[in-house]
């Protein structure tokens, strides 16, 4: 009897974990998003592969960022099966990760990969993302192994985002 209960218990845990991973691939098992220092983020910002990367810098506190998130989500969906990846880099305050970012991610069930940059002195890392970036968000970096484009702006429509991505890779929709 005890064995059965234990088995059911473990099965339910694994289903739970599995479900979480399905919905929130960016969440670890303990439901915390991946926190990265800039050094750990840097590999996300260059590539030698044949893939295209769309890196969006955002935060839950940034209205225009939240407003354009659905476009990045649509991009993730439309690029499915292609050599392309959307990464949403949250710049939320460290003190807001548990209280604001996590609930936001749970509610939105974002399909794009989300990482959180936890780093001090922005004067050190902002220019390494792009020389022209003043530091305002939203900001979006698109690159493959040959070229690199940076946009310190928000996208008002999906069409606007599509327009800057399509020179890199054809979009399904």
């Amino acid at each position: 009897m005890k064995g059965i209960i234990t088995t059911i218990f473990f099965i339910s845990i694994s289903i739970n974990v599995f479900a979480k991973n399905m919905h929130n691939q960016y969440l670890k098992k303990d439901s915390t998003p991946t926190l990265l220092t800039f050094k750990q983020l840097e590999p996300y910002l260059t590539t030698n592969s044949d893939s295209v990367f769309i890196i969006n810098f955002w935060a839950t506190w940034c209205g225009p960022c939240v407003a354009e998130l659905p476009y990045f989500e649509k991009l993730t969906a439309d690029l499915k099966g292609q050599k392309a990846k959307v990464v949403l880099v949250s710049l939320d305050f460290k003190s807001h990760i548990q209280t604001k970012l996590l609930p936001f991610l749970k509610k939105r069930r974002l399909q794009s990969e989300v990482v959180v940059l936890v780093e001090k002195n922005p004067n050190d890392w902002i220019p390494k993302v792009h020389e022209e970036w003043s530091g305002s968000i939203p900001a979006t970096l698109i690159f493959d192994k040959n070229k690199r484009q940076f946009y310190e702006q928000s996208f008002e429509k999906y069409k606007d985002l599509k327009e800057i991505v399509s020179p890199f890779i054809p979009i399904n929709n």
Partner: protein
Amino acid sequence: MNKFIKISLFAACVALSFTLPKSGGYQIGDTAEDFNLKNVDGKMVALKDYNNVKGYIVVFTCNGCPYAQAYEQRIINLHNKYASQGYPVIAINPNDPNLASADSYDKMQSRAKQKKYPYVYLIDEKQEIFPKFGATRTPHVFVLDKNKVVKYIGGIDDNADDASAVTIKYVENAIESLKVGKNPEPSLTKAVGCSIKKKRV
């Protein structure tokens, strides 16, 4: 002849305006133009209204942006520390209230009152001043010397998240340099902030 001179002057101006950088605003070493903007007390404020100052700490900031909020007390502290030494803070809200409701003139007034801002808190109603400076976010700081020459552009310090964990106070260092007649080093820093909410045309 007179007409000819006028026309050639006009042509020269037009030509010059095309060769000048279109955007980006002031660079280090540029002289800032004065402005005349409405303060939260209803009075108009210009830099020339300040007598006997050694410089200006112009801060583009606002009510609603969490980064501006994180720095609010530090901006107050900057003024309290440096205004008496000749370097007052001049806060300017650059946002279009139609796009950022927390940044309306009314709400600026109540915030200034509530937090007893010791400095002026001006509204860039026509959104003509922040592009001249080249401000892109809140908060965005421009330290000018007494001749309105731009000496420092950038962030306040190196840790928005935690004032107690700051290791480099960029603006304070810049002013300390100016006080001894030196150019700030660094004179240009990058910082995270909220994009300025610009009226859509």
